[in-house]
C-alpha cells in the first residue's frame, strides 16, 4: 500500500491536483475522485477499451494505468471533448449517424477515433479498422463507427452535411 501523494496533471485543459494512492488506476481517479463517469469500467485488464482516455494525445486504457504515470501530463476524457458551444467533429458525426446502442463502450470508441483523426486526418478504411481494433462493442455498432469516423474526417475538413 503506497502512501497518498499529491499528483498534478492537466485534465481537459485544466490543471488538476489529486491527493490519493499514486498506484490507483486513472479510471477510478477520474470516476471516483473527480466525478467524471463518462469513461467506463468494462474489463479491468485493458482488453475492451471502454475506459480509453487520451494521454498526451494517445489513447490509453485508464483501467490499468496508474495515476502516477500521468503525473505532469495532458489527459483528455469524453467530458472535455465538446468545446465552448459545440460538439467535437467526432461527436457531431456520432450524433448524425446515431452510432450508440447501449452506449457503454462509446466514450472509449470516440476517444480512440479522436486520436486517430488527430494523427491521420484522412484515414482509409483499413487504417480505421487497424486503429479501432481491440475496442469491443457488444451491441455491434461497428458499421456505424466506421461510417462516423469517415464522416468526422469530412466535418474536420470543413464539409458540413
Amino acid at each position, binding site marked *: 500500500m503506497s502512501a497518498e501523494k499529491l499528483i498534478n496533471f492537466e485534465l481537459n485543459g485544466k490543471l488538476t491536483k489529486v491527493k490519493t494512492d499514486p498506484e490507483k488506476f486513472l479510471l477510478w481517479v477520474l470516476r*471516483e475522485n473527480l466525478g467524471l463517469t463518462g*469513461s467506463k469500467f468494462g474489463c479491468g485488464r485493458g482488453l475492451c477499451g471502454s475506459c480509453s482516455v487520451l494521454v498526451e494525445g494517445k489513447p490509453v486504457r485508464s483501467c490499468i494505468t496508474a495515476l502516477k504515470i500521468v503525473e505532469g501530463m495532458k489527459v483528455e476524457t469524453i467530458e472535455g471533448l465538446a468545446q465552448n*458551444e459545440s460538439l467535437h467533429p467526432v461527436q457531431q458525426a456520432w450524433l448524425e449517424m446515431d452510432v*450508440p*446502442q447501449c452506449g457503454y463502450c462509446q466514450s472509449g470508441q470516440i476517444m480512440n477515433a479522436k486520436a486517430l483523426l488527430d494523427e491521420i486526418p484522412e484515414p482509409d478504411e483499413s487504417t480505421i479498422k487497424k486503429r479501432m481494433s481491440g475496442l469491443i462493442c457488444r451491441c455491434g455498432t*461497428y458499421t456505424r463507427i466506421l461510417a462516423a469516423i469517415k464522416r468526422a474526417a469530412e466535418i474536420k475538413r470543413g464539409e458540413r452535411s
Partner: protein
Amino acid sequence: MKEMIRLNRRDFLKATGLTGLGLILNVPIDAAVAEQAFIPGPFIRIEPDGRVFITVSRSEMGQGVYTSLPMIVAEELEVKLDDVIIEQAEAEFRYGVMATGGSNSVKSMFRPLARAGATAREMLIAAASEELGISKSKLIAKNGSVSVVGTQRQISYSQLVSTAAKYDPADFNVKLKSKEDYRVIGGKGKRQDTLAKITGKAIFGVDVSLDELVIATVKKCPYVVGKLKNWNSEKALKIKGVEQVIKVDNHLAVVADSYFTAQKAADILEAEWVAVEDFSTKSVHESLVKAKQEKASEGFELGQRPNTISNDTLTIDYEAGWQAHATMEPQTCTVKYSPTFIEIWTPTQVPIWAKKTIESFTGLSPSQVRFHVTFLGGGFGRRLERDMILEAVKIARKVKSKKPVKVIWSREADMRNDFYRPASLHCMRASFDKGSWSSVEHKLISDSILASKFGQGVLGPNKVDPTALEGSRFHAYQIPYQRVDYKYVDCKLPIGWWRSVYDSQNAFAKECFVDQVARKLEKDPGLYRVELLTDSPRHKRVLQEVLLMSKWDTPTPKDKGRGCAVHKSFNSYVAMSCELSLRNNTPVIEKVYVAVDCGLVVHPDTVEAQVQGSIVFGMMATLFGEINVDKGQVMEGNFHQYWMPQIQHMPEVNIKIVDSDEAPTGIGEPVVPLVAPAIANALLDLTGKQPTRIPIKA
C-alpha cells in the same frame, strides 16, 4: 434522486449549443407542478409551461425504446419527437408490465401508447373547444397546438393544460390515426439517447452517485456449485480504505471507499472454497449424448405418421455450446438501506419483478421499496435475472457504517457467474419417399430454463419445457410429417434467457439440416426452401428478397461460399444469406444480406441498427467465444479468453425492411438465430463440409 441529474437542458445548451434533442430526465415529479399539470395517464404529462414529458416504462439497453416508444406517443399526441422530454419510469404497477425482453417493447406497447397519445390529444381538443367556444369538429391538433380549421387561429397546448386537466380520460372514445396520416412513425426520428451517450453524461448503473456512497466488490466462489469453507480477512482489512468484509451466501464482499481499493483487497483476501459439483464441458456433452438413447417426450407433431419405415434417411446431430451474455457493463446495483425503507438504483430489465423479490426477501411492503432503473450497459437477457440485486441488498443491510453501497462485479465475477445460454444437442432425422422429403424428426436434448427458474414441477409429468421448443419446428415448410421430441437433462450450470433464447440453437439445427436435405436431393438450398414454403407467404417473401439482394442466381465467386437461412421468431420473419471466404482456415464473413418483416415499423433506423448488431452477436457465438467448465469451474473470465468480434470482423451488411401492414413485432432478437446456420451453410457450400457444432472451431 437529485444526484442523477447530470443531464439538464441548461448544461447541454452550454456544452453543446444544441436544443431540444435528447433530453432525458430521471427525477421524481415535483408535487406542486404535478398539481397544475395535465396528466391524462401514466405515460404523458404536460406541464403548465407547455413541456411534454413522456414516461418510458421499458429499459433502454441499446435497443432504442427511448426513441421508438416516445415516437408512438408523439404521433398521436401531435407533438414533435424532439420537443418531448423522456423520463424513465420507476418500478410501479401503474405502468403495467415493465419487463423488457422477448423483443416485445414496441409490439406490446404500441396500442397502449398510441391510445394514451390519442386520448390526451382529444382531451386537449375538447379543452380548446371549451376555451374558444368552437365546436370540436372545427378543431385539429398539430405540432403542440390546437388550430381552428380554415383560419390562422391556434391555441397552444400550454394554454389548455388547466382546462384539459379537469376532464376524465375515461370519457373520451378515441380513434387512432391511420397509417397514411403518420408523420412520426416510420420516419427518421433521431435517437433520443445519443447526445447523452456521446458526451459521457448518460447515467448507467455503475455511474450512480450518492452522498457517502461506499463501493463493494464480490470475491466469488470459484465453483459453479461450491461452498465457502473458511476465510481470513485480516490482510485485506489492513488496506487503507477497506471498511469491511461481508460473507454473502458463498461469496465474500469487500466494502471500501473505492472500487480500486475493494478489488485490491479482494485479490489478497484469503479464502478457501470446496466444489460441491464436479462437472465439465466434456461430462455434460457426454450426458447429452447418453440421453439420445433415452426416451424423450413428445413436444410437437404435425401430419400423419408414415405407416412404413423408409430406408432412405438422413441423420445428423447438431450441438451448441454455452454462451455468456457478457454485457459491457458488469453487473452492478446501488442500495440505500434502512430497516424500514430501501432505495435501489440498478440497470435491470425486470424492475417490478426485482422490486417484488426485494419485498419478499425483506418483508417490506411495496411502499417501503423504491426502485429506479438506470441506463443499461447492455442487457441481452442477463438483466432479466435478479441475483445481483438481491446480493446487493444482502450486502447493504450488513454494512456497519449504514452508508449506501454500490456493488460492482469485476469482469471475471460477471463472466463466471452468468446464467448462460444452455448447451443443447439436436438429433435430426429425415426420411424420403420417392426422392421427396416425407418426414422430419428432431430430438432436442437440453437443459430447461423454465425448470432452472421455477423448479422441475413446471415441466409437468412429461418433463417438457415448451419454451425449449421455440424455433425447433419445421412447420413453415411443407413436409408431410414433422415431429419434435424433448429430453430434459439437468446440466448443472446456471442457465438463462440469452438474446433470442432457444431459437438460437434450434434455428441452427433446423436450417443447417434443410441445407443437407437439399444437398442430398441435389437441389439449390435457397430455391428448395422457396419450394417448401408454399403455404408460408411471409417466410417466402423475406427469403425471396434475400435471394434477390444477394444475387443468389449468379455463380458463387471463386474461393467463396454462400449460405442462407430463413426463420421466424418473436413473431418476426427473417431471411439471411452470407458470403464468406477462408483465411488461414478461419472463416471471414464478407457480406451479409438480411430481409426482415417485423410488421409495421415504428423506427426504421432502430431496425437497421438491431440487424447490424444482431449479426455481430450471432457471429460471436458462431465463430468466437464459448463458455467451458472444468472441474466444476467456469474457465473463461475475461475478453482474452472469451473473444469478441471487433471492427475488422464486421462484414458488409445489406438490409431490406419489408413493407408490412401487420401489427408491429420484435426486432431485438429475431435476427440472431440466423447467423449460425447462414455461416455453417456457407461453409458447406465452400468446403463441402458443414460444421455441426457451434461455436465452430477452426
